[in-house]
């Protein structure tokens, strides 16, 4: 699922306004349950977010976030349990180091801070999850598409294979 959805080209979507593609990495115990609660309580939030559920936010390898952006995501949301509430005790201790550090690195690569957010969401915070997603979708919409694959193509990554064969000197 994830692969197909993530590599779909934003530009082919039939839509007049830009619809951001946001990938959400949520932990099973707190934040996914919180998002689920928003769903069962019919709290509407924009469909722009695609959620990937993992057992713990500590499992979120920075590689996953970087890959999401590299393949065309316009925004990434990472959610975990509040500090002290992690089901695995210290899983989110790793998250609270990795994600801010990664945010700093991605900011230096030109990815605006509003595109990459870390939020602690408990199982009871469905309303809060709704608010976060609505807010983030609008902010990313304002920023416009990131379109990293297009950027790399325009800078020449891979184009040597398309050029005409070597001619005479």
């Amino acid at each position, binding site marked *: 699922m994830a692969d197909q959805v993530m590599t779909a080209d934003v530009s082919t979507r039939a839509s007049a306004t830009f619809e951001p593609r946001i990938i959400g990495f949520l932990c099973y115990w707190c934040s996914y349950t919180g998002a689920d609660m928003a769903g069962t309580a019919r709290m509407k939030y924009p469909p722009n977010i695609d959620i990937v559920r993992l057992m713990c936010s500590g499992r979120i390898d920075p590689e996953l976030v*970087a890959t999401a952006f590299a393949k065309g995501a316009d925004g990434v949301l990472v959610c975990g349990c509040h500090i002290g509430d992690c089901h695995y005790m210290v899983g989110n201790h790793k998250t609270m180091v990795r994600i801010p550090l990664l945010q700093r690195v991605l900011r*230096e690569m030109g990815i605006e801070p509003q595109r990459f957010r870390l939020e602690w969401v408990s199982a009871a915070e469905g309303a809060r999850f709704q608010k976060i997603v609505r807010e983030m979708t609008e902010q990313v919409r304002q920023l416009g598409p990131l379109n990293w694959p297009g950027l790399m193509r325009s*800078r020449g*990554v891979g184009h040597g294979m398309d050029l005409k064969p070597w001619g005479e000197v």
Partner: protein
Amino acid sequence: MSTNGSEKKKVAMYWAASCGGCDISLLEIGPRILDLTAVADVVFWPVAVDFKYADVAAYPDEYIDYCFYNGGVRNSEQEEVARLLRKKSKTLVAYGTCACDGGIPALANLKSKQGIFEAAYLDNPSTVNPAKVLPQEITETPVGQLEIPKFYDQVLRLIDVVEVDYLIPGCPPQADRVWEAILALVGGVVPPRNKAVKVACTDKSVCDECKREKRKVKIKEFKRPHQVRPEPEWCLLEQGLICMGPATRSGCGALCTNADLPCRGCYGPSGTVEDQGTAMVSAIGSILDVTTEEQARAMLNQIADPTGTFYRFSLGSSYLKARK
């Protein structure tokens, strides 16, 4: 050493956006190079031999048996020569970290082309350029046009512009590993055509080769190398010096940690990861002695330059590759 035929093999080496260290490193195999030249002829090697581009273009296709291309692709000439050499070579090897992963020149991907030109030619303490002259691809003179290559927006790896058979990482690759690779190639132990396989290295990380003691303690504070004398024989990362060992491919013999300085990752990402920077971010997440967000923030503030340190040599093979 033996070869498959009685005819001498044809060998070429080219340097793109490189420092010359890889060409030197090929010579670090020492007296063994005499064995090599007994069975191989150098047919293109600008640093040492007088063949010109026109000569290479005139060779038949696949004339060159083994071609070593070092350096990143920074401009149009380097890409054109990469394509030319691919056409004229049976086996094309990306030699050195610049060709494999972008190397130090790829740090320029954190800046813009405009910024680079300004820093070199306009906004510079010793440069006197009131007319704001910048290098141009074509310059008109009374006798004719002068041409210099187009400076690309981003440093590319060899594999971004042509198909590559093998990659030999290292800045520069260490002599003993290189010799093993050459023996394997020339002896026919490995196929001439392959899918960009990294050779002359192992899949493990530098920590595997480093002899310093790992006490398995968490870090309480980060330090920078000029601020502290490290305790000898104890893991530098555990002492709080950022060391890229965990995220870096081994093959070098952990030479820098032997000299009491932390690894900076010059062999590129280790065998199990593609992106050296995210691997290091992940590793750091696991080894800090923190239980609150404030503590985490405080320690992260002590890291002077995460992007330039974690991606020092491998921005070209990271997922994102460059600044927007």
